[in-house]
C-alpha cells in the first residue's frame, strides 16, 4: 500500500478514504487555500473542467453544467470517448458558500441503483481548507455495485490492515 509521504503526513494533505458504514464513504483532504477558493473550484464549471478529471487515466470532463442554487441541477459528462461518456447528474439540496454543499448524484449508467447524497464541507483554518466529501448511497448494494463497476469508490478497512493481510499472503 502507498505509505503517506513524509511531507503529506506533516501537513495533513494526505488523501484519506474511509468506509464508515455499509452505505457511507468519506474522502478527506486538506488543500492549501481559503475555503471560498476551494468552494468556487468545486462549483464553477469553467474551474471544474480544469481539475476534476484525473488526467493520467486519459479521462476528460467533456461537459459540465452547474446551476448553483437549491433545486438547481448539474451534469458532468466525462470519460475517454465523448461519444460514449459516463454521466453524473443531480441537483443541489443545500448551497452554503463557502462552507457546505449538499447534492444528489445519479450515475446514469447505473440509474436503477438510485441516487447518492453527497455532502461536502469546507472548513478553513489559517488559510487552508479541510475538505470532507461524505457520500451516502441509497443502499449497500449501490455502494458495492459502484465499487465493482470500477467507479471511484472505496471501502472502510484501513489500507494498513489490508496491506498487512496481502503482504502476509505473499510469503
Amino acid at each position, binding site marked *: 500500500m502507498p505509505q503517506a509521504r513524509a511531507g503529506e503526513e506533516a501537513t495533513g494533505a494526505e488523501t484519506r478514504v474511509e468506509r464508515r458504514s*455499509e452505505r457511507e464513504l468519506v474522502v478527506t483532504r486538506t488543500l492549501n487555500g481559503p475555503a471560498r477558493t476551494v468552494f468556487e473550484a468545486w462549483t464553477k464549471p469553467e474551474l471544474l473542467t480544469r481539475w476534476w478529471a484525473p488526467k493520467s487515466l486519459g479521462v476528460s470532463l467533456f461537459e459540465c453544467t452547474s446551476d448553483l442554487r437549491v433545486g438547481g441541477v448539474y451534469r458532468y459528462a466525462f470519460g475517454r470517448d465523448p461519444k460514449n461518456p459516463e454521466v453524473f447528474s443531480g441537483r443541489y439540496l443545500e448551497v452554503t458558500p463557502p462552507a457546505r454543499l449538499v447534492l444528489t448524484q445519479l450515475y446514469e449508467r447505473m440509474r436503477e441503483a438510485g441516487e447518492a447524497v453527497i455532502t461536502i464541507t469546507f472548513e478553513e483554518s489559517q488559510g487552508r481548507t479541510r475538505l470532507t466529501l461524505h457520500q451516502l448511497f441509497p443502499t449497500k448494494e449501490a455502494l458495492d455495485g459502484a465499487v465493482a463497476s470500477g467507479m471511484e469508490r*472505496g471501502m472502510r478497512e484501513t489500507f494498513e490492515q489490508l496491506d498487512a493481510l496481502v503482504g502476509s499472503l505473499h510469503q
Partner: protein
Amino acid sequence: MGPNLFAALGEPNRFRIVELLRSGPRAVNDIGSRLKLRQSQVSQHLKVLKETGLVHAEPRAQQRLYGLRAQPLKQLQGWLDRYRRIWEQRFEQLDELVEELKREEKADAAGKSR
C-alpha cells in the same frame, strides 16, 4: 471478482476471521473459541467468505480446515489503490488550480489598490 468481496469484509466479525486466518488455516471450533463466536456464527461467516473466494476449505485428518486464498485480496487491494489514486490525482490537480487562483486574486488586489 464481484461486489460481494466488499460486503464480505465490511462485516466486522468476518474481517476478524480473515485476520485470524492470516496465521494459517484453522478449524471452525478453533476460530470460534479464539474470537468468542458461536460455531453456527462462524460457519455462516465462513460460508459467505467461501462464496467470495476469499477462503477455501481443505479436509485434514478428521476435520476441515479453513484457509485464505491470495488472489481475491490482491484484486481488492488493486481496487483500493486505484480509488485512492484517482482522488489523490484530482486533489493534486486542484492544488495547482488553487495556487493559480490565489495568484490571480493577489494580482487583482494589487491592480485595484493602484
